């Protein structure tokens, strides 16, 4: 279970590593290789973006990756077989992260069922509001966990409404803006994470615009996991993508492990 993994990390005062990839970006082979490499590097959870035509919360980098993957013929059914193969070799936790419309076709029950069978551990649906409680129940009914987004603009009332759905993990969005944005206010994030921990014991991962060991250093004592998304996707666009990704991640992983 994702929740247990992160509770364990918290117990040992560790900060989890949560990389984000876009399914089959830049292509199927490199994606598979990146997924395996990240598992071998000790990822605690990997978020896999399900490509969508209109990913409204994404900045340019990830939006382009979504479109590129769709252009290459991304298909969820085929992709789930790929995931099955990955899960035969690795026990790394993985969640499908995406937009409501990708999860509702043909129905949330069917997509949940098939995703679970393929080996997904959970969902993070960016535009699924706390109010859609039935949807969260259906997801959990298929033995999947889900991650709840909390933003700097979230009111306490709304956070509590979200918590009543019993998420396994909270994903704290560091800034007002899209993924990969450059408006990080380190102190504000630290304070908000502190406040959030007063409201709930649910483990918290933190993401949006985190791309340096300096960021990791600033946040790691306040969160149970760090999400690296856009910066990773940029590495994968390079000519030697896996090496570029590993080089980029080396200092970040070191900082994460640094007590």
């Amino acid at each position, binding site marked *: 279970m994702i929740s247990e993994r992160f509770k364990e990390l918290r117990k040992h005062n560790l900060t989890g590593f949560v990389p984000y990839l876009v399914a089959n970006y830049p292509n199927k082979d490199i994606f598979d290789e990146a997924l395996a490499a990240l598992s071998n590097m000790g990822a605690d959870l990997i978020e896999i973006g399900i490509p969508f035509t209109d990913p409204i919360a994404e900045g340019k980098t990830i939006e382009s990756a979504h479109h590129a993957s769709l252009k290459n013929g991304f298909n969820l059914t085929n992709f789930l077989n790929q995931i099955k193969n990955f899960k035969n070799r690795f026990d790394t936790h993985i969640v499908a992260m995406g937009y409501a419309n990708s999860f509702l076709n043909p129905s949330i029950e069917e997509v949940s069922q098939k995703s679970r069978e393929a080996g997904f551990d959970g969902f993070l649906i960016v535009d699924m509001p706390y109010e859609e409680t039935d949807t969260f129940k259906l997801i959990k009914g298929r033995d999947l966990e889900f991650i709840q987004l909390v933003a700097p603009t979230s009111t306490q009332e709304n956070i509590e409404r979200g918590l009543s759905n019993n998420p396994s993990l909270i994903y704290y969005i560091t800034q007002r803006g899209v993924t990969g*944005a450059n408006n990080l206010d380190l102190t504000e994030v630290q304070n908000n994470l502190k406040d959030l921990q007063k409201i709930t014991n649910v483990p918290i991962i933190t993401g949006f615009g985190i791309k340096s060991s300096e960021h990791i250093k600033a946040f790691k004592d306040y969160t149970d996991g760090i999400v690296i998304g856009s910066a990773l996707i940029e590495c994968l666009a390079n000519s030697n993508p896996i090496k570029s990704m590993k080089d980029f991640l080396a200092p970040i992983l070191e900082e994460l492990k640094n007590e």
Partner: protein
Amino acid sequence: MNKGYYGKFGGIFIPETLSFALRELDTLYQDIKNDTTFNNELQDIYIHYVGRPSPLYFAEKYTENIGGPKIWFKREDLNHTGAHKINNTVGQALLAKKLGKKRIIAETGAGQHGVATATICAKLGLECVIYMGETDIQRQELNVFKINTLGAKVVPVSSGTATLKDALNESIRDWVTNVENTHYIIGSVTGPHPYPEIVRDFNSISGKELKDQSIERFEKLPDMVIACVGGGSNAMGVFAPFVDDLNVELVGIEAGGVSDSDIGSASINDGSIGVLHGAKTMILQNNSGEILETSSISAGLDYPGVGPEHAYLADIDRAKYKKVFDSQALDAFYKVSRLEGIIPALETAHAIAYLEELSDINKDKNVVVNMSGRGDKDLYSVMSL
């Protein structure tokens, strides 16, 4: 039922960052919508700035030509800025002022909503940024120039299909980033709650006037009201006051594109249920839930979704939704220009084209077409056909 739903359609499908802004807007709107001071202020702008009420015009030659029911046009094309869009933008700009937000963003397809937004922002002294797809910028050059002239900024959007839906995506991204000082004036009855309700209410001034004008002119309610539907704001505005008058037939006209083999933009006729831009509604998508690239001769109808309340009215059979193709719309564009001396917007021409189907209806019946906009903005693109 969850908040903001119309039957199984609607909802608030947005990233959490925007949640507080939508709640704030909803709370303010519910407080203010029956507030006398606010409504007086709005009425004053409607009368002296927009030029309301818009006339109900009897289209005598068109009636003769069709040889069926009496045909009337509700002249929203005579509003300041040339379309129904201003009804919504003035209302929302006043809301933005009450919210204390000094920066306005909006998406635009045909450019009418962009112009209507830039116009009221100029009047009220609000900063204004308009997102517009590059494809639309090319086919609506005149409106881009108008927006700039009004002191607003046009930001070209090149991602995806570079049309209205991508302009909407970019607007949402801007709003997520600047949500604390920015109000997003959505231009149609689409998007997350409370937008479909707000945009409907501000546009319903046309339907309310039509009700009174019908009694005045022909001593009863219309037998049929016809309006074009892209997102569906002009249609929802003119339909809303009649929804409970079950004898009034409501007909929405969607854009079918070139032909039936084309994807077109007819979300209710050809689409299926899904989530796009914050609402669960009828959308044009493939089996994997990816949004399709739509097409229409009219930029304002070229959108793969539709307001959730329209999806609901279709679902419960209260309104029917028909499809008109590009060539039929173009025929109507010329026909109404020549018979009545009114050059309609290509969007509106879709609704007018449907009149050809009505020759069998009794001569005593009264059919009203919502003349949602005028055609000046489309002259360049029609010229180049």
